């Protein structure tokens, strides 16, 4: 269970609460899909790692003067993954949609990036904001339209509500992906631009009055900070830059995920992922 969350299945947490005793504002769902990872696998361990390496974090957040355990975060547990990705995404979408129907924000722990497709289908946002080293705009990778390298393209093409995609921290892609990124519905923001002191999210996307879904591919971070991911790409974002983006987008987001964490480091990637999830919750809760 994510530290500070309540167990949806009623086992309770450190605060002695059960799911029945709180109204869920946020629902954590683990999605340990590990099928199309193209280099180093291990995202099947992502949700467990993120929960584990979030244990040392203090419950109290000084910036927003809130306790995480008071914010109505419920942990649904993992949705067991299997190899039929299309069927799995359909099932996962349903689980996340339950959270949406209950007026809660789903928080997905990946799992490979493909799971974002289920999150976006459940939430049906207007804008997909993504932190990612890669464009993920392949039409298909190795013939697989549901590859993690094609997830942003699928979201653009398959989810009718999505009008616009903004990818921050992207620094690599194939020639065809960059051509697709030239279209009006895609905005790419380089790590260098994000690093400029004057940069704000509102410089690149207008989120006022629009619903957003925020996806954090942990490989957006420089691999020096998050080596535990499948396809590391140097010259990435600083964790503090990622934190600023999460804080800025959270008040407009009705869905969140952090993906592509695996078990090939000493917990750096999972720790950063858990911290960014908490930043999302604190910022979203304090804006309500």
């Amino acid at each position, binding site marked *: 269970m994510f530290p500070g969350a309540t167990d949806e299945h009623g086992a309770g947490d450190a605060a002695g609460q059960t799911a029945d005793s709180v109204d869920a504002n946020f629902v954590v769902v683990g999605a340990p899909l590990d099928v199309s990872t193209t280099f180093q696998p291990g995202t099947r361990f992502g949700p467990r790692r993120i929960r584990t390496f979030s244990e040392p974090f203090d419950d109290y957040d000084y910036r927003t003067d809130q306790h995480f355990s008071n914010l109505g975060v419920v942990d649904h547990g993992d949705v*067991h993954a299997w190899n*039929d990705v299309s069927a799995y995404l359909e*099932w996962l979408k*349903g*689980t996340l949609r339950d959270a949406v129907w209950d007026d809660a924000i789903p928080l997905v722990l990946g799992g490979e990036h493909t799971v974002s497709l289920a999150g976006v289908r459940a939430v049906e946002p207007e804008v997909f904001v993504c932190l990612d080293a890669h464009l993920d705009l392949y039409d298909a990778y190795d013939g697989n339209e549901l590859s993690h390298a094609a997830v942003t393209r699928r979201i653009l093409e398959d989810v009718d509500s999505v009008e616009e995609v903004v990818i921050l921290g992207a620094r690599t892609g194939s020639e065809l992906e960059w051509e697709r990124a030239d279209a009006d519905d895609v905005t790419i923001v380089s790590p260098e631009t994000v690093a400029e002191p004057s940069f704000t999210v509102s410089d690149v996307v207008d989120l006022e009055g629009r619903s957003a879904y925020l996806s954090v591919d942990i490989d957006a971070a420089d691999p020096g900070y998050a080596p535990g991911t499948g396809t590391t790409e140097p010259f990435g974002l600083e964790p503090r830059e990622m934190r600023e983006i999460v804080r800025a987008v959270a008040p407009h987001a009705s869905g969140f995920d952090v993906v592509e964490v695996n078990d090939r480091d000493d917990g750096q990637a999972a720790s950063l992922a858990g911290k960014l999830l908490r930043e999302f919750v604190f910022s979203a809760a304090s804006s309500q």
Partner: protein
Amino acid sequence: MAKQQTEVRDLQEGSYVMIDDAACKINGYSTAKPGKHGSAKARVEAKGVFDGKKRSLSQPVDAKIWVPIIERKQGQVVSVDGNDMQVMDLETYETITMRIPEDKDVSPDEDIEYLEMEDQRKIV
């Protein structure tokens, strides 16, 4: 209540099912592969026939579940009074009072089709 029992595996999109004691029409049905020790599960997404509320359930495919028996009937509007209308059942000639849905415009002598389950009714 008029209902019959079936297995979750026999449900399909477009058919009816009871969820939380409410008659619902299924608009989504997906199945999950069984885990190492679990049985296959099915997930049903449905909308209340009479209250329009979205509901879902996840059950093993071999679980028993109730399906409501909803009658589809023909009627004729006898009179309209504000938000209500008097409708004559064209089979039994019984006259009943029904609320006019906000998105419908009806007038006397008009033939309508409606769903009926016990004392709940809805125009198709």
